[in-house]
């Protein structure tokens, strides 16, 4: 008896799948199960191995902060969120493959892209192909959302963006430079897209605010280069008054360690944009005093109870400091979850419509909120500030917030210049 019904159901499923496949073949849409009590599966291609394995753990932790709250509150009419994270090993082709598999085989309805920027572009293409909602969580490459040619209606970004950071950095650095008369600048950034774009834009805005600046040299160490001696000696040769660097992660700690023994930081003002993140701040044993940095993530900025509490909860839950990928992924997740609640469904188009232009409460926002800007589906109004380091917790006691009005204004000009409008 039960056997018979099983077979029947099986046959029905089979026919349904067959029909769906035909539909897929014709319309290019994936077959997605919509049973009411099934969990809502979210696929997360991310890096869990190799040198950037931290990306995966902190990203997933960030997401889980929000997902657990959502599930504890009963989910979407009883449907719980299930996050499926897979290791791309940092390879774009694996990111593409896994994204397709997560949607096509594992039945994920939404993608969280917690990859590097090369992987992000690959996942972006998949989202376009399959028509699913993707939230880019980590990539800061501006063109992904700014370039209309690349735009995908169901793709969003919930991370910092290079152009925002560069404008903020330029305006802050220009102020210091004017005060101290720092005219001879040098850059030392990793030799790949993020490093090059970020540095070029920073210098552009630095000169915009303080035209007397002269760039006297550039050094481009390779990504994951273990040794910076060649770069350091070149910098010392040139004897600039100030240095900009957007090195990050383990590269940055090695760079700081090696610079320290050359006494580099006592010889020039250093603007190392990525220092103020807890992995870096806690990894460097002798953190130099007075490095200028932007906030990657700080529990003390924005100085709000919500932010401090979030950081404390995170530390209690995962026994580690939250970092920039943690807050970005938490924010992206929150947008998706709020979107699901608002749309009442996970259907891609409706969900995307709900998220587009949405404003949510957030400990990481300037005024307690962040917005998913409608025109280019990217995050704005998150906290950006600059300050100077001290060797001990809280590491960067005074953070100066950068005004978003300045950012918006220059961003619009930048878009126009690049024919992005």
């Amino acid at each position: 008896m039960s056997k018979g019904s099983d077979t029947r159901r099986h046959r029905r499923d089979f026919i349904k799948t067959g029909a769906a496949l035909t539909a897929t073949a014709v319309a290019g849409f994936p077959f997605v199960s919509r049973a009411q009590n099934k969990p809502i599966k979210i696929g997360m291609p991310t890096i869990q191995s190799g040198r950037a394995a931290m990306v995966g753990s902190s990203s997933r932790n960030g997401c889980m902060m929000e997902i657990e709250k959502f599930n504890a509150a009963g989910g979407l009419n009883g449907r719980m969120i299930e996050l499926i994270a897979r290791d791309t090993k940092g390879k774009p082709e694996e990111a593409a493959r896994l994204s397709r598999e997560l949607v096509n085989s594992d039945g994920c309805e939404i993608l969280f892209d917690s990859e590097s920027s090369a992987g992000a572009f690959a996942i972006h293409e998949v989202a376009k192909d399959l028509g699913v909602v993707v939230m880019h969580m980590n990539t800061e490459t501006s063109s992904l959302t700014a370039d209309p040619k690349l735009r995908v209606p169901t793709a969003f970004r919930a991370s910092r963006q290079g152009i925002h950071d560069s404008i903020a950095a330029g305006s802050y650095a220009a102020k210091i430079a004017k005060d101290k008369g720092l005219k001879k600048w040098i850059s030392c950034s990793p030799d790949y897209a993020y490093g090059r774009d970020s540095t070029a834009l920073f210098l552009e805005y630095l000169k915009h605010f303080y035209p007397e600046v002269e760039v006297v040299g550039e050094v481009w160490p390779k990504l994951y280069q273990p040794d910076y001696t060649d770069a350091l000696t070149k910098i010392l040769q040139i004897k600039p008054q100030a240095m900009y660097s957007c090195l990050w992660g383990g590269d940055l700690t090695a760079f700081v360690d090696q610079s320290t023994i050359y006494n580099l930081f006592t010889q020039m003002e250093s603007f190392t944009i990525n220092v103020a993140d807890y992995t870096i701040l806690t990894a460097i044993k002798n953190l130099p005093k007075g490095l200028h940095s932007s906030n990657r993530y700080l529990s003390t900025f924005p100085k709000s109870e919500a932010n401090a509490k979030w950081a404390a909860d995170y530390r209690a839950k995962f026994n580690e400091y939250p970092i920039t990928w943690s807050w970005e992924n938490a924010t992206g997740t929150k947008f998706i979850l709020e979107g699901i609640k608002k749309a009442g469904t996970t259907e891609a188009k409706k969900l995307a419509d709900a998220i587009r232009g949405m404003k949510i409460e957030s400990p990481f926002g300037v005024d307690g909120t962040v917005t998913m800007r409608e025109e280019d589906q990217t995050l704005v109004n998150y906290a950006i500030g600059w300050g100077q380091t001290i060797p001990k917790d809280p590491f960067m006691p005074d953070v100066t917030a950068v005004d978003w009005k300045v950012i918006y204004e220059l961003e619009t000009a930048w878009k126009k210049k690049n024919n992005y409008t």
Partner: protein
Amino acid sequence: MDLPALGNCVTSLSCIITQSTSGLIIGMLLFLVAAGVSLIFGVLKVVNFAHGSFYMLGAYLTLTVYGVTGSFLLAVVAAAIGVGLFGLLFERLIISRVYGSQVLMQLLVCYGVILILDDLVKIIWGAEFRSLGMPDVFLKPPFLFGGGVVPVYYLFLIVLTLIIAVLLGLAITKTRLGKIVRAVAVNPGMVSALGINTGLVYAGVFLLGGMLAGLAGALAAPVRSIVSGMGLSVVVESFIVTVIGGMGSVAGALVGSLLIGLVRSFGTIGFPLFTEGLMFLLMAVVLVLKPSGLFGRET
């Protein structure tokens, strides 16, 4: 390309001094790893792709021992001995089983070991990068000479590795054991027929190679970030050095390492985007002109 900058540099004494010392620093640490790779290849004809992982283990061992004891000296010694023993085990248990197989099969085995070690390191020490911090002894202002700057630690590093290079060179050319090792590289069967246990020689070479790599990892620990997978770029550069210098030659490894160091330090000025390409170009040129390397034996 920035040839004018390179031109300016090579006509300025202080730039030459600074960039040369910088090349020396990069080269000497590389030498410790490359010497092992080169010896192992020369004597055993094994492409030990896992040698970078030995280096990584050295750094992590240093991190732990330094953390527990607070003594950098002890940490360095422990790393050298620990990784040396690991190299011995690796040879006896794993790589000795594929002697005589195709090079590609040996490569596969090494790759398997790399994958396992990278993951084990992550399980034991965590996925995040770690930093040892400079031991207090070396926290002194850098030396100045000829307009160039050399930090104390790097001076220590250069002197120590130079001493090791000289000792290693003497050991391999002057001692009976060294002579046996070189003889095994040429004709292991004959050496065996003379009553010498070549298996022990193989194991010994791995022990030595492991110790050198462990030492390199230990010496790198205060200045480089310690992270799973850190051995990869080092082992790739070591193979470039081995090819350039000649497989099995300690002098070749030294010259090759210094050459790569100089390419890196002057390449940064002249060809900022293409220094890696430059290294491979150098390797290609050497292979085309003299396949056995600068100090290699024609076979």
